[in-house]
């Protein structure tokens, strides 16, 4: 593997954002993902290769470590920040169409519910997995999901809820989404929901944690 790609992979995996960043201590004083991506582009490495050989594998490693309880969320967030710094450099290539994401993922916490920590983690991990994210925020009703789907045909939808009195709103949203396009895939997550509830409301997948959401989406994209 190209040395720059290897270094970039390491920078993203361990959350080294840029040269100035003091985190992580073992990479202090070294280039971060921002500079390494810039150098990779300048040396003529294909931007799609940068994405697929460095950024996505780095975030896959991070997701795996998190799933295995080997790192905490802040470390994962630092990796996401490092990936974000690379994406700044890659932005023009996304705009010109020379890099493609795996698809679009629309996510939101359902109507009546304000809890967004789990939703944000899923969004971050899915983005790290090479997807475009449209985060609708919290307290999102069916109309807004349907509207976002209209604007992004083919997108996959993610619904989050933390309360027993708001999870019931997922059913209506799934019905509206499927009425708009029966082929649209909907995944759900949150403390009170489970596989049985997922099947009951006609959703396609229950993700017990962020990594499982990424794995499901990657299967859809493959």
């Amino acid at each position, binding site marked *: 593997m190209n040395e720059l790609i290897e270094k970039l992979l390491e920078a993203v995996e361990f959350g080294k954002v840029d040269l100035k960043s003091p985190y992580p201590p073992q990479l202090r004083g070294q280039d971060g993902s921002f500079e390494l991506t810039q150098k990779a582009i300048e040396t003529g490495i294909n931007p799609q290769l940068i994405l697929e050989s460095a950024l996505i594998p780095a975030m896959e490693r991070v997701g795996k470590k998190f799933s295995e*309880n*080997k*790192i*905490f*969320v*802040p470390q994962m*967030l630092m990796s996401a920040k490092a990936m974000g710094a690379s994406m700044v450099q890659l932005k023009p290539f996304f705009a010109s169409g020379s890099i493609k994401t795996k698809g679009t993922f629309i996510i939101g916490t359902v109507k*009546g519910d*304000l809890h*967004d*920590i789990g939703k*944000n*983690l899923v969004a971050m991990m899915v983005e790290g997995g090479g997807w475009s994210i449209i985060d609708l925020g919290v*307290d999102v009703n069916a109309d807004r999901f349907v509207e976002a789907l209209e604007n992004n045909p083919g997108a996959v939808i993610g619904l989050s809820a933390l*309360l*027993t*009195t708001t*999870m*019931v*709103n997922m059913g209506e949203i799934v019905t509206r989404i499927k009425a708009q396009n029966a082929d649209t895939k909907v995944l759900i997550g949150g403390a*009170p929901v489970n596989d049985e509830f997922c099947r009951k409301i006609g959703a396609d997948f229950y993700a017990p944690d962020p990594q499982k959401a990424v794995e499901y989406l990657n299967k859809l994209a493959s």
Partner: protein
Amino acid sequence: MKLCALVFWWQKHNIMKYKSLIINNPEDLMFGIAPKPVKTRRGLEIGGGQVYAELNFTLPIMSINEGTLKEVYNHYREIAEGALEHAVHLNSKGVVLEFETLLEMTKTPSIGVEIVKIMNDICEEYYQKHGLASEIRLTPNDLREFERPALQRTSKFLEPMVELFERGMMAGGDLLSIESTGGKEVSDEALMMCDVKGVLFALAVLGVRDMQFLWGKIVSLANKHGKIAAGDSACGFANTAMVLAEKKYIPKVFAAMVRVISVVRSIVAMEQGAVGPDKDCGYEGPFLKAITGIPISMEGKTSACAHFSPLGNIASACADLWSNESVQNIKLLSGMAPTAYLEQLEYDARLMNEALRAGKMHCSILQQLLVSSDIYTDPQALILAPENVIRISKAIVKGDSYVANARDGALTALDIIEEALLSGKMKLPEMETSFLPIFRDDLNSIPDSENDFIAMMLPMLDPGKFILSEYGL
């Protein structure tokens, strides 16, 4: 006149009123006994030598709308009747029913008021028929978090919240509480980043100011109607941290820091005139009890129906009410879940009451067992041991600003955790302990002065996330 001048001075300078502890000795920080007990309308004396059950409950999976309102009311009727009937059967000394409202019940206060009325009628019936003393703790949810950035002082949601408090207390809600959310818009992100300075800013600057604003109103309403302004809980902050730590999302040592920092925020309710019992999910309660002398409600192993925690036994070490956090009204093999949980709470309370009846030595032995069974299993348990509560509380009250109070408390908690690690009594993995020097450096970088701290933090925070003027800044 001197007292008035003093009150005016601490309010003007925005510093903590408490400069010393009411309970100075760990052995005096005991379940069932508070220096300032609270007497209720039907005769409960909370903190007066008895521990009572505080039952908390919620609806099963269902929507709340016009079409389901009758069913909603029936659920609450069934919960209250089932719990009180079983309390009589168990020879209960008294029960608190906590009614924590759901969104729709606060947005439309008449729904919340009707539920209070239903439950209060049942409480009165059991009082008249069986002499069972019970009271309702009314806890409206803080609707202001529906707006981002939050409009803490100008939100249209304040009106229904205040209406529910006032009409709800007139309908029989005697103990008033809330889990207020001032500063949560900053805290949520800080928790995920393990940003101790961000959490301290959220709780000791924004949280304190919002508590001053909100609890001034609640206390004034309670006084107007002769009701009891009980207390607040840093649930949305420190319990979020505890649950995230349980899921292994953030280090347990960080969750312990957040708990201690939350003390300076929750104590503001008492500064404004709240008298307890502090709210069940506020695990900062033991610190409030030590500093102010109020009775507290706590929850531990009996709250596993709502969330897991590492504090199952130790949480009851100085509880005056013993709670279950929240349980859905669903059928179990024995009966409905709230009734089953009432039984569990009653048996725990009965054991503590038997120790209280037998005398100080028995209380001390029971408390030691409750503490020693948990203390070194988790840093969050460690800081709740009575001797550590007193040590941390003494550090908290020394400072001359809420910021310094919170910082010094957190640094003392760090000392206690490191001492336990050094002694070998507590073991934590390297992925936990590696955070300790980072937290210490962060805490040591915090200045004494609130103004200096605000100046330090503002460039580091996203200005789009919160509105300073909504906190009176």
